[in-house]
């Protein structure tokens, strides 16, 4: 059983007539040579496999892309595990392990509180979780450091944060931010698992005399697939995060693998080979979580969701308990989301943030007037932000389209080697840092063979779009695989049997059931695309600079006030798009579409 879909067990496994044959049937059909399958693998090859492999090949063969004299060498492997880079790899591994465990524990607690108790503000917390998912880690770090730095936003209102500041710039801050970032992934997977978990299991345990603790211990393993899946994705997301490694990690002298990779190629000439070794380590690091999961899952069936699963019963807190529980959840969201947003927003209104001033704090709108009307470098945010929105629109739409197709195949091919390979491929791809994809894209798409015979798009916007699709696709596919697998195949079959064609059947049954996840998936890719920096920086075509690059150049050049204001404006703009998208969804979809659907958004 694969991690991707563990959260949403397939109904085929519920006892039913001759279902024993069903999975193998599906497998059989998918294994056949089909034009669709070939097209998908060609697309994946062009999007991900070929560019990434071009880069990874350098780990042992620098000469392949004229990066050295050897056709084959293992010396870079040794180099990568030494000194600074070696420390980075080691740090990343333990931090990611810790973060994935923390994220899953907190996510399980929150998911339980939000879905299984009468804690206050459940709808709001579900939305907050989404906002947390959409927030890039570097923005989160920016907010925290704007808040905590000497003469920062907190000091402006009279709170001394010097001690916290030094604590924050260290492993503690790194673990906090990365946990906050990994949390939503874990949360949504566990929520889906929890929703499939009917109340009967809890009831059974309690009726047989289990204490509350024993009940939890008994019931939790039932959602083990979801937990393991959440651990795997949290681990992969944390391993590949660059935003924190580049900001917090760097400033606190805490090397992490992605920063070590960046460092290896920061010099001229860049050491692409060592970077490639690190990338291989990042990709391979997802194998143990998947292997663990396969091992645990091998002989057991965890099909807990069925068409007749009753809606779960909520645990009723006492009034005082409810207030306390609500306060705990509220405090949590305040810390992970409120604090950085307050920091960034507050910081953007303070004149000379971070500067000592004898006359105290001065509020200013100066940075905001500079956002679209810059007096200094002549770079306005307007054109970059427009471009980023266009990119977001195209990339999110394209990714959504491909992800649905891929997710359907992934779910259909469940069990067996092909699926495990697809799974490792997808999760491994999640762990590929953007810069690897970016440089790999140059290697591959600048090859004369490719540019003359396949497609000539190096130095154009379409190449950047493709790379952004490639970076979003693996995560998006995994994101969709759960909901896709929750759709009983018989729903589509029923439509076909009652006279609907293939397309109509999909439109009338699958589309409504997936509409919500499609919307959120789209928004996720949209916002991630706008805030993506590594790929954008290396692949943006001449004179077409995306917003994240503009913002970064302000932040790096002692224009952090303007840079922060731009960050806030971009956040506001993204929130506005999210709001509009949700409004349109509400207005155009029939009532039935909204009342079903997917756990992540329903509280």
């Amino acid at each position, binding site marked *: 059983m694969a991690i991707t879909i563990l959260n949403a067990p397939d109904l085929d496994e519920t006892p039913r007539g001759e279902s024993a044959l069903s999975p193998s049937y599906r497998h059989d059909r998918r294994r056949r040579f089909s034009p669709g399958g070939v097209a998908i693998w060609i697309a994946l090859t062009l999007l991900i496999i070929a560019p990434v492999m071009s880069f990874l090949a350098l780990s042992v063969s620098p000469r392949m892309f004229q990066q050295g004299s050897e056709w084959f060498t293992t010396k870079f492997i040794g180099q990568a595990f030494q000194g600074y880079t070696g420390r980075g790899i080691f740090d990343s591994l333990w931090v990611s392990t810790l973060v994935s465990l923390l994220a899953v524990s907190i996510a399980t607690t929150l998911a339980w509180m939000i879905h299984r108790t009468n804690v206050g503000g459940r709808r709001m917390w579900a939305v907050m979780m989404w906002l947390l998912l959409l927030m890039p880690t570097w923005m989160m770090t920016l907010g925290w450091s704007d808040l905590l730095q000497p003469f920062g936003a907190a000091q402006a209102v009279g709170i001394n944060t010097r001690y916290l500041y030094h604590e924050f710039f260290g492993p503690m801050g790194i673990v906090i931010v990365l946990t906050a970032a990994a949390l939503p992934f874990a949360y949504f997977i566990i929520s889906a698992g929890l929703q499939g978990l009917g109340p009967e299991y809890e009831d059974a345990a309690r009726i047989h005399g289990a204490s509350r603790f024993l009940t939890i211990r008994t019931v939790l393993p039932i959602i083990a697939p979801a937990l393991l899946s959440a651990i795997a994705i949290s681990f992969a997301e944390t391993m590949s995060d660059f935003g924190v490694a580049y900001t917090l990690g760097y400033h606190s002298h805490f090397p992490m693998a992605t920063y070590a990779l960046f460092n290896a190629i920061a010099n*001229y000439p860049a050491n692409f080979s060592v970077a490639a070794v690190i990338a291989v380590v990042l990709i391979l690091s997802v194998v143990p979580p998947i292997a663990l999961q396969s091992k645990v899952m091998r002989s057991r069936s965890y099909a807990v969701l069925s068409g007749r699963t009753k809606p779960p019963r909520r645990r009723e807190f006492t009034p005082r308990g409810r207030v306390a529980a609500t306060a705990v959840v509220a405090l949590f969201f305040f810390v992970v989301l409120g604090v950085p947003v307050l920091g960034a927003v507050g910081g953007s209104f303070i004149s000379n943030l971070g500067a000592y001033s004898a006359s105290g704090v001065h509020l200013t709108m100066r940075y905001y007037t500079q956002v679209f009307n810059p007096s200094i470098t002549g770079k306005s945010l307007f054109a970059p932000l427009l471009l980023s929105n266009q990119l977001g629109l195209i990339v999110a739409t394209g990714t959504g389209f491909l992800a649905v197709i891929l997710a359907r195949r992934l779910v259909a091919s469940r069990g067996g080697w092909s699926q495990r390979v697809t799974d490792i491929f997808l999760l491994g791809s999640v762990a590929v840092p953007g810069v690897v994809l970016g440089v790999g894209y140059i290697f591959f798409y600048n090859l004369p063979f490719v540019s003359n015979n396949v497609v000539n798009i190096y130095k154009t916007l379409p190449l950047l779009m493709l790379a952004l699709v490639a970076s979003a696709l693996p995560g998006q596919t995994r994101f969709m695989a759960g909901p896709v697998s929750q759709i009983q195949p018989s729903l589509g079959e029923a439509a076909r049997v009652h006279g609907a064609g293939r397309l109509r059947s999909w439109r009338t049954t699958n589309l409504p059931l997936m509409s919500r996840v499609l919307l959120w998936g789209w928004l996720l890719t949209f916002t991630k695309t706008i805030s993506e920096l590594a790929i954008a920086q290396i692949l943006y075509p001449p004179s077409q600079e995306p917003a994240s690059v503009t913002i970064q150049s302000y932040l790096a050049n*002692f224009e952090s006030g303007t840079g922060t204001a731009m960050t806030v404006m971009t956040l506001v703009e993204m929130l506005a798009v999210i709001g509009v998208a949700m409004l349109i969804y509400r207005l155009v979809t029939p009532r039935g579409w909204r009342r079903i659907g997917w756990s992540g958004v329903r509280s």
Partner: protein
Amino acid sequence: MTLSNIARGAVRSRVGAVVLAASVASLSLIAVPAVSANGAQGPTLVVYSAQGYDSAVVKAYNATHPGFTVTLNDNSTGPLLQQIQAEGNHPKWGVLWVDGATAFAALDLKGMLVKNSVPKNVKFNALGAANIPADRSFTPASLTVTGALCYDSSQISASQLPSTWAQLAEPAYQGLLGMNDPAQSGPTFPMIAGAMSFLGHYKKGSTAHALSVGKSFFTSLSKNGLVVNATNGPTIGAIQSQQIKMAMIQSSACYGSKLNGSFPTLAVKYLNFSVALPGVIGIDAKMPPAVRAEAAKFVAYVMSPRGQHVMQTGDPQGDSLFWPTIVGEKPANKIIPPLASAHAITINPYVWGPLESQINTWFDSSIANG
């Protein structure tokens, strides 16, 4: 028509209007990149540049030189060099224009630069001439210095400042000094290399000695509380938040932050030496002749009085704050002192360029993250 029908009609039209509006908005958003994605046909000269004034220069050049498309690939130095390296034997750049000569020396050694590309009729001043390589494969179009001591005059008076680099390691300056990380800030490696070269009395063949003297110097700075930040922004920010009082950085960054009003009390002092950082321009040897010819015209334009003027006005509070390398041209702003006061030295990029990776790796593990 019944009331409910009218209501339903209204709902439908509202939904319709929203859908229509959304699709129109989406289409108009998509339309722009789709159109602009269609690049120009025929040979194109692409200028890879990290200079703040590059867009002004390319715009002015295109206005006065019709008939050939010159496009600008503007980015930070790091991504530009990564792009060039990844492009390998199939380069797309026609002209590279960034600060620092070391990358050019490396490209020249690989045979990737057009030799004798320095415009013939330009009269270089002394420091300009000193930065032209023997094979004349790249042109110093401007000059800034790195290793300028940038300080907050409201926090520390000029009389309290050191006058030599060696003094920076003294207890009096403990915890007061900052600098950038060479892995993230382009001008920082030349500064480190220059300091090693000067302090180690570099002569041909004495690289190892200069390296060991230089390393022990930076180690002593580190022991004296040197604060390393990523780039100019955070380093100047650290002065502003009084984490440090002064920093060894690029002169133009310090002048820029003073001039743009974000840090008016900033000032620059030059110690016993600073390191010349030429703004270098070179031409890709692998381009077709027509592109190379256009590139040569572009370089000639940059070195012409008109080109120099555009450079000096294109980024008035940033990269335009340079010293010209041509006899007769003056800095754009009075804030810039005579070049002689900077005591700028020149490093040999062919010697120090190949050491960049080694020195930066050492710096990262021993100084920046030691």
